[in-house]
């Protein structure tokens, strides 16, 4: 589903990713772990097309297409989703309005018929019920005045209504207490299927107790320093990133 080959990328002219390789197949869950400053967030923004993040070498193929040539909204239309580390507050825009705009934009992109108000509400009701998301949060403005946990659950709700093929979770555990973490992880797990893939970016191992990965990669100095199974996460939890912090060759 996703093939990243020798990816080099800069942020504000500074090279952050220095030859990253990663291959993700449908049905798999990959975790990328790494110390602060290793390039984890750069990878997630680069894959979703944020301004200022520039690939200078290598390629990213998503379902065989050059992902980096697409606008952010086109990537979303193609099924790429980023759960933000810091979900953005949008004053003046009701959450329901935002969700409907997003769902219908993606449907339009895919050549599907847009949902009318009734169909949308019905679909949304079902998703909020599954995720235990309150109606009160739907009425509020996007992420405005939400607690840290509510913001992350809102990300999970967006993921549920957009049903992406590739979901990237950027530090989804940050700012969450253990109960909120469990709720968010459960809602992410509900979305797992043989047709989609997850890329979980995290500093700590604890999220991986709830979203169990098939593959774990250590990102250090802008490239994958080591890959392994889920046991690698536990090893990192015990030993820390000390072994990966030495100056880059």
């Amino acid at each position, binding site marked *: 589903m996703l093939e990243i080959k020798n990816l080099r990328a800069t942020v504000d002219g500074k090279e952050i990713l220095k030859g990253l390789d990663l291959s993700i197949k449908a049905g798999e869950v990959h975790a990328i772990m790494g110390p602060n400053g290793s390039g984890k967030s750069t990878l997630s923004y680069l894959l*979703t*097309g*944020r*301004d200022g993040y520039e690939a200078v070498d290598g390629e990213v193929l998503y379902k065989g297409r050059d992902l980096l040539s697409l*606008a*952010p*909204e086109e*990537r*979303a*239309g193609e099924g790429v*989703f*980023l759960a*933000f580390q810091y*979900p*953005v*507050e*949008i*004053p*003046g*825009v009701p959450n329901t309005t*935002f969700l409907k*705009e*997003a769902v219908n*934009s*993606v449907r339009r*992109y895919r050549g599907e018929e847009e949902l009318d108000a009734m169909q949308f509400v019905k679909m949304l009701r079902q998703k909020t019920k599954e995720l235990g998301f309150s109606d009160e949060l739907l009425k509020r403005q996007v992420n405005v005045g939400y607690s840290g946990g509510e913001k992350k659950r809102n990300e999970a709700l*967006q993921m549920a209504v*957009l049903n992406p093929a590739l979901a990237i979770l950027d530090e989804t555990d940050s700012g969450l207490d253990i109960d909120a973490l469990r709720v968010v992880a459960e809602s992410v797990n509900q979305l797992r299927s043989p047709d989609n893939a997850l890329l979980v970016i995290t500093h700590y191992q604890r999220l991986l107790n709830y979203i169990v990965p098939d593959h774990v990669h250590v990102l250090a100095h802008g490239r994958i320093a080591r890959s392994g199974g889920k046991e690698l996460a536990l090893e990192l939890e015990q030993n820390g990133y000390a072994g990966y912090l030495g100056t880059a060759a």
Partner: protein
Amino acid sequence: MPVTSVQRHKRKYVAQMNIQTTTPDTSRYQDEFLSLRDHLPGQDLPWMKDLRTAAMDAFAGTGLPTLRDESWKYTNLHSLSACNFKPANSIAGQISIDHAPRLMPGASGCFLMTFVNGRLRLDLSSFENLPAGVTLLPFEQLADQHPERFEQWFANSLQREIHQPMVSLNTALMSTGYVLHIEKGVTLHEPVEILNLSAATPQAFSVHARNFMVLEPGAQATVIEHYQGLDDGESFANSVTNISLGQDALLRHYKLQNEGLGNYHLSTISSQLERNASYDSFTLSLGAKLSRNEVSVRLAGEGSECHLNGAYLMRGRQHCDNTTIIDHMVPHTSCRETFKGVIDDQARAVFQGRIVVHKDAQQTNGHQLSKVLLLSNEAEIDAKPELEIYADDVLCSHGATAGDLDQEALFYLRARGIPEERARSILIEAFLAEAIQAIAAEGLCPALMTSIGHWLADT
């Protein structure tokens, strides 16, 4: 000891100023006045003739305002003075229009007075069946039907007027407009809609409308003014509105200015509020080549309050000026102002907000806010809040911000599949919604949001 504080600041992104140094040439206006004066409303009243002549003389002395006039420092009428406008009432023939475009389709019961190029069109109006105690008249009938009110209201408005060139020009040439009078204690439940349509004529035309709104003690009304250009023909509208609110009276005064791009829209509103009276106004400016909304409010009775709000969206080379002057004359008065603007391309906007707290006007509340989104590097806002405070127990604040769209929010929306143009529109609408949602008239908010939606879609 009175505390005097004058705060001024200005945000300027592109310096661009043409100082005029020529002496005013007002002969065109004087010729127009001489040819029209025996046909203007009230021509049989000696005091009115004198008033018009004196106003023309005053105007001839100064001409149109220039950048050298402090209150016109950022709005240049040079291109207006270069244009040759013919009075709309001297242009023969009727514009063919068979239905009035309504701001709020489906709003029944609303009283509608329609003007086309400044001329009242009864065939496009419906303001019969007004409740008892409510008078709605075209301006030119006031002199005939209520000459004593006519004189009284002019006397009242002149008492507090200082010479303003645009008002003098209007007084000399005023020939149309509307008059709303509501008797003591009467509430007009349905809004009055004043629709001003402008359509191109072979020669550029001018309209000098004079409006009066007089609400006796305890009266209440909602007035919606809708200026709609049907094309981009050249025209010049210079309206003056005198508002007088008696004790406990409440006026909600809303306006949509959606003129064509050949239009100069100059509007001066001056209102006087007695004890516990309340004036609530909102102006949405979308059209016109150049527009200026000048609103001055005298809070003359204790407990009186005003809300002056507005929003504007400008693009191309449009220019929009919102100037407000609020005089707190007595203690316990309050005002609140919020203006929000969206400026694109090389368009330019001006916000001048003056709050004067007179000596002894203690316990005054005054708050003023100007927020602007600049969508291009060449867009410009000149914001000049001015607080003049001569009392020592007051609470006054002002703020002015200008910035680009929130790039983080834009990316967030796009990352959810919403195309960039639509994402920008969503953010712009959300930015303006705060100001528009303050409007109390039922059905008007969605109608204005629809107008904004059309503006945003029309790129």
